[in-house]
């Protein structure tokens, strides 16, 4: 669409793209130097009230979401659209162009060229050339005029779209980002072990959002390296719909759980003074999991037993062993040291109980819903593919002009490629010497 309207030309120009790219790159620096998303008071104390006021007017404290920065991104997108609409029809014509329409004069003038003669008559030469081209993967067409025959073959005409794939990939990524910011949310929730939650608090607005289902933290565990560095955080989560369990999974950092488009990421934890005690009657299989505060008695009325945590040993920041007492209806209570979070069998009331005691944690989950993320990923894939096509693939064309001569036929072979000419010339040369030999 060649349009001479000057406004159109302005938005279609590469100069505007250069200016926009420059502005985005340089203004982006601001937000890496000035801390973002701090409260107003922070800027007052760091930069003085006047500067803080100016920052507030220019949205500097949240510049990547500011009207002017978003406008720059939109300008880039708009520039891309207009530029592509402006140029693509021309590219499409080149893709669709019929090489047989290229005149013999132009074919003879091309710089990549080779000519030879053969004793065979024109029709035989044309046939064998087409056959050999086909053997090399070049599907050829021909056109006959009064005194000569043109054979044409091309490869990769579609690769001319490479740059446009890259450009549209940026628009697809923008689209994904917009979908995500309109239809998604980012929040967090802290769930103490054994408890469940059905709401999360959003980061930016502090708004509370209903999940539409419940999520329960069955347990949380930290593993350490020998040097005391954390090795892994693991939460066992269960999704409940109207009180019934529908899904149970362990999540770790880098391995989240997604349910109904909402994803739960392991992000932090909180340690409590309380303990989680799980006891199982090994004969009947009846079991109980309760939160037992430090040095408080807990009852299990169905089994007529009582228990409690009376002491704990700490190494570093974590509890390694726990002293419990466990009492039946009659008889003295027994006390013993248990390793944290390991199964131990106790004998009480002449019944066997398997007991596990662990420190109680709350798992801190990041909760995100982003319906645009797949658009972003598709855009990213398209970009890498498009870059490969734009930089490493080319549209290659070959013509062979066959003319009758006194003793058989004379051939002129020419070729052109829109990119990587040295590479094409190698291909052309081997092909040409192959054709000449027949």
């Amino acid at each position: 669409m060649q349009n001479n309207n000057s406004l159109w030309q302005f938005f279609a120009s590469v100069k505007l793209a250069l200016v926009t790219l420059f502005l985005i790159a340089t203004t982006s620096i601001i937000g890496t130097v000035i801390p973002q998303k701090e409260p107003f008071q922070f800027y007052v104390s760091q930069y003085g009230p006047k500067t803080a006021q100016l920052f507030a007017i220019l949205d500097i404290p949240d510049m990547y979401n500011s009207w002017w920065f978003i406008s720059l991104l939109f300008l880039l997108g708009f520039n891309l659209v207009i530029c592509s609409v402006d140029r693509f029809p021309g590219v499409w014509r080149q893709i669709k162009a019929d090489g047989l329409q290229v005149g013999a004069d132009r074919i003879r003038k091309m710089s990549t060229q080779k000519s030879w003669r053969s004793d065979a008559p024109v029709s035989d030469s044309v046939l064998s050339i087409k056959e050999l081209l086909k053997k090399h993967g070049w599907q050829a067409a021909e056109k006959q005029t009064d005194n000569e025959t043109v054979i044409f073959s091309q490869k990769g005409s579609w690769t001319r779209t490479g740059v446009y794939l890259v450009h549209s990939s940026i628009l697809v990524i923008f689209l994904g980002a917009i979908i995500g910011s309109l239809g998604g949310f980012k929040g967090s929730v802290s769930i103490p072990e054994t408890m469940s939650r059905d709401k999360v608090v959003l980061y930016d607005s502090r708004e509370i959002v209903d999940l539409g289902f419940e999520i329960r933290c069955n347990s949380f565990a930290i593993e350490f390296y020998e040097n005391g560095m954390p090795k892994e955080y693991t939460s066992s989560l269960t999704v409940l719909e109207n009180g019934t369990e529908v899904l149970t999974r362990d999540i770790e950092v880098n391995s989240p759980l997604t349910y109904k488009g909402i994803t739960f990421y392991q992000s932090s934890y909180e340690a409590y003074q309380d303990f989680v005690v799980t006891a199982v009657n090994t004969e009947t299989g009846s079991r109980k999991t309760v939160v037992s505060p430090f040095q408080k008695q807990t009852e299990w009325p169905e089994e007529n037993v009582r228990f409690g945590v009376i002491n704990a040993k700490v190494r570093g920041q974590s509890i390694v062993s726990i002293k419990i007492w466990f009492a039946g209806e009659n008889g003295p209570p027994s006390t013993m040291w248990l390793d944290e979070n390991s199964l131990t069998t106790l004998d009480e009331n002449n019944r066997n109980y398997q007991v596990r005691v662990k420190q109680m944690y709350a798992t801190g989950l990041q909760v995100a819903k982003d319906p645009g993320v797949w658009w972003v990923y598709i855009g990213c894939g398209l970009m890498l593919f498009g870059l490969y096509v734009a930089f490493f693939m080319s549209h290659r064309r070959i013509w062979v002009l066959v003319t009758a001569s006194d003793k058989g036929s004379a051939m002129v072979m020419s070729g052109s490629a829109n990119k990587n000419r040295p590479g094409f010339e190698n291909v052309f040369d081997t092909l040409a010497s192959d054709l000449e030999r027949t």
Partner: protein
Amino acid sequence: MDSSQLLGITTFTFLFASFLYIAALVFRTENMGKAATGFTIIALLILTLGLGLRWIESYQLGIGHAPLTNMYESVVFFAWTIIIFYLGIEWKFKTRTIGAFALPLAFLAMAYASFAPINRGINPLVPALQSNWLLAHVITCFVGYAAFAIAAALGIMYLAKTSFAGKSSVDQSKELLPPLATLEDITHKCMIIGFIWLSAGIITGAIWANSAWGTYWSWDPKETWSLITWFVYAFTLHARYTRGIKGKTIAWLSLVGFIAVIFTYYGVNFLLSGLHSYGSS
């Protein structure tokens, strides 16, 4: 013999090879150039061995992970990619002059790794770093950085050649360095390769961030600087399509781009704060 000794030997072999390349350039002796290439290949093999050994050592410590997880390891890997990339160019374009500029870069990287006050230990990975995306991210980024490093070396050669041209005392440089058109062509090719790999690096980083934190992009300083770098090269690739921007300007842009790379990679860790702070240990 442990990995750090091998890496130390590499550092000095790079220094030696740098001198050989420079000498070959100045005295124009073919044999010295061949020796330079030979020593570079030997250094690359030792370095590869050193990295492999470090990988094995991490398994012996019971915390096995690829040697790509802290500043020290990434600088060593950077030197490794620069050399591989450079040797590829030497082979493809049949010229050794670039070596006089590329080898010193690899030497500087190794010297920084060996002597700067940074942690050279093999450390276990905190949970957020335990991801295959980390590997993909680091490898793609550093291949890109290596390509940009070579592009910057070519930019310096281009600028040196244009500024010496005409001054009779150093007129020789006209013949010492490849023709301007060749330099510009290889610079452009390096930037193309770098741009693709940096794009892949940013993308793998975004996917990793999304799997760890639920946001593929959070405008943290390191992310933002990688994007700034990406924009600098996007700008440079488009500059060819407007009149008046070529040759010298492109050479300068290759330097600006590489400064952005260095800042993304190094400056952000020390001058700014953010998610990637692990790199500063």
